[in-house]
Each structure stands twice: as C-alpha cells, then as structure tokens.
C-alpha cells in the first residue's frame, strides 16, 4: 500500500518537497503510518523555511514550480500517464500492481461576476475487464451497481449528466465540463451488441433506478444517433455511430434525490474526504448545479497494452454572490458548503484542492488563507492558469486546528474577464400558434481566427421543421455548411436530427434559422400541463477552439527559447462543447377545462344518438330473396 502511494505522488509535489520525497523513496517499504509520520516530521521545517523566505524568493520559487502538470478536464489522466512513464515505475513493478485506485480533487475558481465556481472530480480506476471475464464479482473501490451495468449491457462508454440551471458562458467563462440543463445520456455500446435499441431502452430504465431520475422517459422519440458530434473519449477505435445513442431530457428537475445515489457511488461515501462538503442544502442553494458520471476505458500505461476502466464522477456548482454570499465578496469552504475539511478520504491516493489564483499573481486581488506554498500550472481550456494547491493527504495542510477552511477575501473587485471565444444562444422567433422559427446564434469572439464548429440539433417531431428554409448566415452573407447530416422525423417515432459543420468567421455571429410548424397533437399526447409548453433540448456545439496561449507570442513566461518558436500542438487548440439553452414552445392546445369536456361529450352523445336514429328512420328495410346456389345455376 505504501509503495502504491509513493508511486503515485504527483510530480508537482515531488518538485515542491524534494526532501520529503527522498525520505519516502528510501523508506518505500515501511508501513503507511510511519510514512505519514515521516512526512509530518519533515514538513514543518519545510514550511518554516518557506515562511522565512522573502517575497522575491517566493516569486522565484513560483517560477521554479511552474511546470505544466495537468489539464483540468483530463487532469488525473495526465498525472497517471506521467507517473507511469516516470523512473519510479521500475520500483513499482517489483511490488504487486494495484488493482484499483481512487483520486479526488476540488477546483475552486473565483468568477469575475463575484460568484464562485467549485468543481469536484472523483476518479476511480480499476484494472479489470468486464467483457472478457464472464463474471466480475469482487468489487473494491469501483461501485458494483455500475460495474454490473457495464457488463450486462456491454457498455463501452457511458456519460450521464444531471444539471439544474444554465451555464452562463458570458459571465462565467467556460466550465471544465459542460452539460445541458436537465438530464443528458450518451452511450457507446460494444460492437458485440446486436439489438442496440433494445439494450439502450433497458439501460435507460436501469440507470433511471440507479440515479432516481426519470430517464425511463428516454425512448425512440428523443433518442438520436449523432454521426459526428459525440466521439468516444476512451480508448478504442470503433466509431461506427450505430453503436452510439444520445438523448436529453430538458425537463428533468435535478434535486437531492439524484445527489444521494450519486454520492453512494464514492468509495468513502460522504464520511471522509472532499465528499464531506457535498451537503444538499448548500449545493441546491446555488445558481448552477451539475452532477455527472463518466465511464470509459483508459490506457493502463503509455504503451496501452492493457486497459482499465475509469469512473469519473464530477460535480460542478456555482454559488451566487448575492444569494449565497450576501453580496460580500468573501468566500470560504465553510461559507460555500457549511462544512470544513478534516481529512482526506483514506482510500484516496491523491486528494487535493486547487484554488485558481491566475488573476491574483501577487495577491493584490484577494488574500488566501491559510497560505500555501504549493503552486501548480495547467493549460485549461486554452488558457494558462495558476492554482494554489492544498494536499489533503498531508497532515500539515490542516494545521493546528485539524481542520481546513480555505478563505478568500477580496481587496478590490476590478478586473475584466476575457470574453469566451465561443458561445451560443438559441430562441424561438415569431408569434402565434401555427408556425415559428428556431434561431441559433453562434458567436466567434476570436479577433482573427476562424474555426469550424459542429452543430447538433435534435428537435422533437411535433415541431415539423421545414428543412428547405434552413439558412446559415454570418456577417450578412450566406455561409454554406461543409457537412450536413439531416434525418427527418417520423411522427411519434423519432425526432429530427440535424448535424452540420459550419466555419465561423473571426469576430462574427453566425445565425442558423429553421422554420417549423407546430403540430396538433392527439388529445392523449398532451402532458398534464399542456399550457406550460413543450421542451426542445439544447443544441450541442462541439468545436476545436484556437487557444489563447498559442496566440500569446509576446509571452512573458520564462520558458526555454527552443520551445516557444512554433506553437505546440496541444496548446494550439482545445476542445469545447457548448450547449444552448433549451426552448419552451407552446403548441396549439385545446381547452381541457370542464366546459370543453362537457361540449365534447354532449356533441358525441348527440352525434351518436342522432346518427343512429336518422339511420333507422331513413333506411328502407327489404327482405332479400335467398339467391339460388351455384350448383343450381345453369
């Protein structure tokens, strides 16, 4: 166990406390307790020395530590890859390989609007094969309920998210992981599955039970098979979209009953670690709440000889300055979650809190207490960010009071946010209950680069889209999409699917409009609240957006000259998925009130009664002579 822990210590920590590490390297076979003790022993001297250093030294140190460690979305993956390729691997192979592993982290980012964004990520890795072994019955950290789902339904990749609220890209920037309002589910099945639709339906029902959500409303009328927008995120090269299913339920209301089963999937539950903070009374007193589960196969090592399963649970929440913060720009863990941290999850190999301090390099914007010497840099969504790091596996993090309550107190509220390079909005135009027009606006705020985006629109059948009215315009000119995939709807069977690849010119707004006609439903097809309207799910815009870092030719970052001439590939663009708001559309609705019903019933009775009476009165009855049989005919 100790060896396993040592082996997976992330490099930034290695760089920071070299002395501590040397101790642990040499003592890798000693039991866990003594390792902790050793760490605790050596750490105070370290921090003391840090405290004694001057500010200049701190700056210098910061530059020393400025190594790119991870990208938040695939943060842990990068860590594990680097770990595996690092020299310690040799040491590790001598001990039995760990079967499963758990990591947790919390990223806190202050937003320019004064709100605060907290993003939890929990990652469970398990080196097993659900498909090959007939029955996987011994579960460690990986939740059994999901493991059984994977093996029973031959799932290759599963992504499910529950979101309450809409991510305000223009105020908050890009989220680490975006999700549409309501519930979203997309699944890649193994190519061994023969009846994909049947399996999909069954899977949705099972997940509905697991997550206590109305996923059972997923059926053929809201399921689509995108051809280009949703590619597998894990390993594997099967991209035949016959094995992909995508569905959203924009009306799904997410609340505590969805959070509780989600928390139960964590190895420590809510007993220890970061999950202690997940209290529903605070999480649902926020501007935005989103929880997600992503399951995918990932490489075990850089050679990718063996695959392991990754379960990534994410939870994003934005607390409002005015509602949760009482208008004061002062945030602490306690104020956000009404809890403080006392320990890491004992089962976790890493447990960290990252605070985004990019806009606060010299501490002039806000002060952070307790101060931490650990800094980390990462390129997140095309932007180089600096984070202060609190490592919860170190006792020293909790200080003398044995509890950690990170506090940020603002000194000034200045600062401008960079406009997000890509954002989108959507609305229904027109009035009346017969026709309408869906407008999707995509903004490219990049000053001089154009980039292509993939737009996915899934519209229910009761909006009859007139695809011949589809227009794409940017800067007043017609913008011809280079790829269009359109699958027309079938009434009561399947929705419209429209996918297209559009090039967004620099600094422009691209408008996609389609006219539609509102269908008159059968009276049993109306919801119990027909006057509320009918939902149309969010459009999905997937794009590789040119990175801001790559543009930054006048970089002040002290990097080796040989690395700065050509913009390197991983930084030159980054993947973003943007969801538009869902639409609420009113359909022509009959009056379902009592008088209407009375009129309908009376008319029916009168019609039936009158009809039969009239029939009886006007018909002439005749006795028909039985015709002679065929045999007697001459």
């Amino acid at each position, binding site marked *: 166990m100790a060896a396993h822990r040592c082996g997976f210590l992330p490099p930034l920590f290695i760089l920071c406390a070299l002395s501590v590490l040397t101790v642990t390297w040499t003592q890798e076979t000693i039991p866990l307790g003594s390792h902790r003790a050793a760490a605790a022993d050596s750490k105070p001297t370290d921090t003391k020395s840090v405290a004694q250093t001057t500010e200049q030294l701190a700056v210098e140190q910061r530059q020393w530590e400025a190594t790119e460690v991870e990208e938040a979305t695939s943060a842990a993956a990068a860590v594990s890859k680097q770990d595996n390729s690092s020299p310690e691997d040799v040491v590790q192979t001598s001990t039995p390989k760990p079967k499963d592993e758990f990591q947790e982290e919390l990223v806190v980012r202050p937003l320019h609007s004064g709100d605060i964004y907290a993003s939890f990520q929990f990652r469970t890795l398990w080196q097993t094969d659900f498909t090959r072994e007939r029955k996987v019955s011994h579960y460690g950290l990986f939740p059994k309920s999901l493991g059984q789902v994977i093996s029973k339904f031959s799932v290759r990749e599963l992504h499910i998210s529950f979101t*309450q*609220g*809409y991510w*305000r890209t*223009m*105020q908050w920037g890009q989220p680490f992981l975006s999700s549409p*309002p*309501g519930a979203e589910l997309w699944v890649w099945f193994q190519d061994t599955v023969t009846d994909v639709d049947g399996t999909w339906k069954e899977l949705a029902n099972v997940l509905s039970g697991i997550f206590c959500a109305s996923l059972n409303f997923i059926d053929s009328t809201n399921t689509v098979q995108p051809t280009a927008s949703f590619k597998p995120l894990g390993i594997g090269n099967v991209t035949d979209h016959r094995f992909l299913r995508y569905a959203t339920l*924009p009306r799904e209301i997410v609340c505590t009953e969805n959070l509780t089963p989600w928390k139960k999937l964590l190895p420590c539950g809510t007993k220890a670690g970061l999950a202690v903070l997940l209290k529903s009374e605070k999480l*649902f*007193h*926020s*501007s*935005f*709440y989103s929880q997600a589960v992503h399951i995918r196969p990932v490489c075990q090592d850089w050679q990718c000889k063996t695959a392991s399963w990754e379960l990534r649970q994410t939870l994003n929440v934005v607390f*409002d*300055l*005015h*509602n949760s913060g*009482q*208008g004061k720009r002062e945030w602490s863990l306690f104020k956000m979650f009404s809890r403080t941290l006392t320990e890491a999850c004992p089962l976790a190999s890493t447990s960290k809190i990252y605070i985004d301090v990019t806009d606060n390099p010299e501490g002039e914007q806000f002060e952070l207490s307790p101060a931490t010497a650990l800094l980390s840099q990462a390129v997140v969504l095309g932007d180089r960010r600096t984070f202060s790091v609190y490592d919860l596996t170190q006792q020293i993090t909790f200080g003398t009071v044995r509890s950690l309550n990170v506090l940020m107190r603002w000194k000034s509220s200045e600062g401008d946010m960079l406009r997000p390079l890509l954002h989108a*909005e959507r*609305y*229904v*135009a*027109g*009035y*009346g*209950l017969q026709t309408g*027009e869906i*407008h999707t606006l995509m903004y490219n705020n990049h000053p001089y680069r154009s980039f292509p985006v993939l737009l996915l629109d899934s519209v229910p059948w009761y909006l009859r889209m007139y695809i011949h009215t589809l227009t794409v315009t940017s800067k007043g000119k017609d913008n011809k999409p280079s790829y269009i995939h359109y699958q027309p709807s079938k009434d009561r069977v399947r929705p419209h699917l429209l996918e297209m690849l559009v090039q967004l010119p620099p600094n422009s707004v691209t408008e996609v409009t389609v006219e539609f006609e509102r269908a008159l439903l059968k009276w049993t097809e109306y919801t119990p*609240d*027909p*006057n*509320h*309207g009918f*939902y149309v799910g969010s459009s999905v815009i997937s794009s590789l957006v040119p990175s801001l870092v790559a543009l930054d030719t006048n970089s002040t970052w002290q990097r080796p000259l040989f690395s700065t001439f050509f913009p390197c590939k991983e930084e030159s663009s980054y993947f973003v998925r943007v969801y538009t*708001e*869902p*639409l*609420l*559309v*009113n359909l022509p609705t009959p009056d379902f*009130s009592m008088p209407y019903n009375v009129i309908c019933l009376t008319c029916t009775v009168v019609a039936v009664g009158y009809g039969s009476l009239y029939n009886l009165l006007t018909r002439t009855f005749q006795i028909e002579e039985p015709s002679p049989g065929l045999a007697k005919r001459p």
Partner: protein
Amino acid sequence: MGLLSDPNRRRALINLLTRLNAPICGMPVDWLVKTMQARGLEVFTQSFSRTLPFPDENKERYMVKGTNVYGILRAPRAPRTEALVLSASCSPGDENNQAVGLLLGLAQYFRNQIYFAKDLIFLVNEHDLIGMQAWLEGYHHTNTTGMDWTPLHGRGGSIQAALSLELNSHVVTSLDLVLEGLNGQLPNLDLANLFYAFCQKLSVLCTIEGKLQRNDWDSVSGYSQAVQTMMLMVMKQASGRPWGDHGLFLRYHIEAATIKGINSFRQDKTDATTIGRLLEGMYRKLNNLLERLHQSYFFYLMPSLSNFVSIGYYMPAFGLLAVILLLRALDLWVQLVTPPPRNEERVNDIAQSCPGVLSILIPLVISHLTGVALYMLPVRFQEMAVEHFPVSETEAVVLTAIAVYTAGLALPHNTHRYSSEGTEQGWRVLKLVAVLYLAVLLGCTALINFSLGFILALTLVPVAAFVTPHVPKVLSAFALVFLSPACTLLFSVFFYQELQEMPVSFQDGWILYLSVISQGILDHYLYGSLVYPLIALLVYPCWLLFWNILFWK
C-alpha cells in the same frame, strides 16, 4: 414579505427616487446600464428608430430614435426557458420617473431573493409604445411594422406575463388597472383578479377605468356607476388601441396589464413601499405559475374590478342584433324566389328584370374602390396636400380622409348609368348581398373585438334593416349619414368624454375627433392596429352599399 422593511434598503430607494426627480433630458442610458449592473443584473440595450408616416401632434414626434435598456435577473438554477417582464417607460421630463425608480428598487430587492424560478426582465423603454414595439419585435424576431431595431443579445425564454408601471408621484391615492390592449385584446381575467386580491390584502384603493368600486349594487347610483365603468371599457376596447405599454404584449400571447398610479386630492396616500410590496406579491404569484394563465376568461367586460360579465352573457345581445340581419336576408330571399301575382303584362317584365351579376358587381366594386381610396390616399397624398393647402401634414391626412369619405357619398348616382337594370329585383339582390355581408362582417368583428362589433352593430343594423329605395329620401339619407361609421366615431368621442366626466364643447370635441382619426391611422401604421383598415376597407364600403340602395332608381 419583507420588502423595504430594512431601513438601509428604504433609504437607497428614496435616494434613487429623489435623484430621478431631477428632470432628465432624454433617457439616461449609461446611468441606467450602470445602475442595473451594480444591482447584479445582466444588462443589454437595444436601439431603434422609426419615422412615422406623418407627424404625431399629440406626442410631438416624427422621427423617433431611442434606446431600450433592459436587465435580466437570472433565476438561480433555471434553464432560461421562462421569463416575466416588468416594464416602465422613460421619457424626457419627469413624466414617469417614479416608475423607473421603483423598478430599480425592486430589481435590487429581487436580486437577493432565492425563490425565483423564472427569469425576471426589467425593461426601461423609451418613447413608450414605439420602444415597446421595437423591444417586443426584437425579442421575437418579427417585423410587422417596418421598424428599424438592433437585435437583442440577451433573452430569457418564453415570456409568461408582463406588467407595466406608470407612476408620476412618489405617493398615490389609488392604483388603476388598464387591461385593454391592441385590437381590443384583453389579458386573462386571472391577472386582474391577482391585482385585485393584492390590493385588498394591502388595503390599497384600486380602480378600473378610473372608477372606484361601490358597494351599493342595488341602488340606482351604484348601478349607473357600474354601467358607466362597463361602457368606458366598451369604448376603450372598441378603439382597438393599446391603452398602456402592456397592450403590445398581448399579440405575443403574453398576459399583460398596466398599473397606473393616480394621485388625486384624497387624504389617504399610499407610498412607493406599498406599491413595491404589491408588485412583489404579484411577481411571486406569477413566478409560482406552472402554466401560462389560461384557467380564466379571455373575453369579458368589467363593471367593476371584482365583477365581470363573461362572453356567455354579452354575446347573446350581439347575437340578437345579428339575427335581425339574418331575418331580413331571409325575407328578401323569400321575396326574390316567390313569383309575383300572375299578370299577363308583368310576365315580360320579370323576364327582363332578372338582375344580372353586373348590376350587383358594379356597386360592390365601386364602393370597395372607395374604401381602398380611403385607406391609401390620406397617407400617400399628404405631401401633395401640404403643398397646395395651408395645413400641416397631420391635418392634411385627417382632412383627406374626411374628404374621401364624403366624396364616397356622391357615388350612387354614378353607378346606375352603367347598370341600366335598376329595377325592383335589382335592389333586392343588392340588399340581400349587403345584409349578408354586414352580418358576416359584424360577426367576425365581434369575435375578435366584441365592443367594436357591438357598437357597429348598434348603429348599422337599424339602417340595414329599414333602408329601401321607397322610404322618404331626405329623412332616410339624414338617418343613414347620422348612423354612418364616421358619425358613430364622432358621437363616441363625445360619449367617452361624458363617461370620463370631462364633457367638452363642440369645438373641442371636433378637434378631439380629428386627433382621434389621426391617432387611429397612426396606431395602424405603428403597431398594426386593425380598426382603421377594417373601417376603411370593409365597414365603409358595406355602408356605401346601403347608401346605394337608398338612391336606387
């Protein structure tokens, strides 16, 4: 409800109100944007411009340019699908400044509340209805009236309900609810009920059509007041114009009403805090709605704020009037198909006098062409009129309209020259057509705008029923002119002033009449009101047919 119970908040509001008391030249767009942003709203602006077809002398505007400012309070954890609107128009001078102050105060208060499930849009519109029209067209991306506006960049999904505020002073004695919208559309009755319920709860005096409710229903004076209130509503609805900023929302199926603060000489005053509490209550109720307001009536008349007359009661009255026309039509039909008493010499006559299609078609076409002229000429020829006569553009339009209208009366003598078959059967067929035409026309009008249909029916049905070529010409001609649409409008103006308890002399009444005509034409061009084209293109030609019958030879 704790609105403004906090002294700090109250002070902030009072500061705001006193600040707005200072006269403002144009709309302080930058200040509004900054103030709204400071209150934590997402703020957007929309600029618009519109050149009126001819100068509006009532509001002294011709080339209108303005900016709407609106701030969206995003509801926590809401997916931007539903929104509520609170609007106040801001105009030069201190006409409506208290409303803007209250709107900003409410925005600040609402921002700190957690219970909102729908986005709230706080809209400050310039140039009252024109700004509102621009904003609504921008929001729904339609363009029905040819206005120029810049597209909106922030939306809150489908708007469920809207309220407009009109406050001129920081204290009011009563609040007046205005319901009548464009083309006589009314919001759902539940919106009125909601307002009434909260006025009762906060013991604020509330009125409709500016008339207080009386408790003595059974007394004559109480009854006559209720009738007056209802007649006022009928008159306002019949005019087809939006009587407040809310009026344009109704086209988009958004339930909306205007709340107007009235400051009279009464002793009991209500302060802005109470109005704020009232609005807070209304918005919380609207916020809790799961569906659009649809449970109550959309067609009603209100004799007082707590009583209403539903469509089931008033429609039979109109139905009885329409039946007269149908019976008359039946009578004419029977007369036409029944062969006259067999006389040898008359047989030839009948064979000859079987009226051709032409004899009916010509009057129909000519009267409709007159209607088209009445619709097109006034605005088209205003420049020419201004050049040749010493009148302003507005006067030119109105006087041209009256001239065309009067000229139409001279037509019947002309039509017969071409149709030599001016016989007994001929006028019967024409009258049959005209009567059926009128019945269909009034029926359709009454379904859309009951009051307009009813007033037209009251005046046109007697004429249609009695007119034949055989009645005394001079007397009948006088009656026919007396009951023509234009004279109806003139009497309506006087009647309305009488109901408002502001009687006018004939001179003032005539000036008012001219301005009403110009306003009606402007309403059509600016907001798409249908009354002017309805009168010009359909009702007036139909009336001309009867005029034609009277002078049948």
